[in-house]
């Protein structure tokens, strides 16, 4: 069996910066991820469910399964520091998973 411990990085933030986050992931060498679009949510920065037009007010959830815990931590830290810590709404967290990817 090929199940092995891995870490899933989950980033939920403004749809507007999806591309910027993907670019940052690419810079960090991460090229495999899954994107859930047009999700809604509430947080400390107000309800964000289509109260305005375009991408401004919807959220996006990006999930990245990464083999090494250390790299996962580096990724979440980079994303958090560049985007979530400053100006953009969102949350990020890690989960332990057992992955079956080739």
């Amino acid at each position, binding site marked *: 069996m090929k199940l092995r411990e891995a870490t899933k990085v989950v980033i939920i933030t403004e749809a507007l*910066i999806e591309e910027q986050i993907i670019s940052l992931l690419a810079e960090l060498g991460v090229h495999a991820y899954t994107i859930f679009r047009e999700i809604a949510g509430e947080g400390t920065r107000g309800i964000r469910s289509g109260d*305005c037009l375009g991408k401004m007010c919807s959220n996006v959830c990006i999930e990245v399964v990464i083999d090494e815990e250390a790299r996962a931590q580096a990724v979440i830290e980079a994303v958090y520091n560049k985007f979530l810590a400053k100006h953009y709404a969102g949350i990020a967290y890690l989960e332990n998973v057992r992955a079956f990817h080739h």
Partner: protein
Amino acid sequence: MLTVDEIVVILLEGLFGPPMLFFALGIISVLVKSDLEVPAAMRTGLAMFLLAAIGLNGGSEAVVALVKYPALLAVIIIAALFSIFCGVFISFSTGNILKKFAGLKTADAWAAAGHYGAVSSATLAVGVSIAAAAQEAVGSGILVFGGWMPALYPFMDSPALISAILIGRIALAKEGIGGGAKVDPKKILHEGVFGMAVWLLVASLVIGMLAQYFSPKEMDRTMLFFGDMFRGVLCLFLLDMGLAAGKQIGALKELGKRIGRAFMVAFILPQLWGVMGILGIYALHLAFPGLLGWGDAFVFATIAGGCSFVSAPAAMRASIPEANPSIYLPMAVALTFPFNIIIGMPLWQIMCRVLWGA
């Protein structure tokens, strides 16, 4: 000259025409907590229809006019240069006014300024609808609206966004804020030209020109869709804009004590920019008589006076993330947009008709 009676008719026809009433329905629906919603895919579809329709119609009329009056090319070029000037000037002035008079923070002032300088497709669509109806009413003998004005969109939009962002970032840097944020004018220009709204509009204009020239019968068949449906589609689109405006009314409270001044700015400034636009086009009309109708000046006023609330917010959120969207979004969509279509447009229309004596 317009009589008072005619003016009243203009005002009533505009305010109680279906598009404006559907806009009101949108706002009211939010206030009464109706669950009426326009799905996002439908919103995009309606917007694409309107942009393509404005472009196709403008292109096909432009090609006819250009063949007849080659001098129109000079008019278009001068108007494009004037648009660039307007874009920069409006962003610059609005930013300073918002900061000094309305008391907004630096980031908020310049982010909002970009919205006022940029072009609002929704405002433009309403303007085109009014001008085209006026042209239709008088028949093709008299020139009211040449159709090509919407092509000036990118010439005002991009310069306005770029200058607001650049000035804003410099001002923020001076205050020592967000020194690390990068501004990439090339990227902003790219988004300004190839962003969905302006790109589809301008490309449709080119398509309209080519198709009108090479394939007029096909063009006629195509306009059964893009022409006849325009007014009705505009109704559903404005319903959605009304919903968006209604949802932002609540956010106005974020303006706090500054709300009175923000209100004034949101109402008065666009009127000034609209009038400035009208006067510019009128001067061009005097220089090149017979090539510009009152509807052209009117549509230009909707381009200059309109305050973007779909593409500008996204651009500003990305480029001046320090600014609070709860300042600029409600100002643009819940104050200026309704003011413009309900009060500004009738005034601009009257001014244009008076100038042109129509």
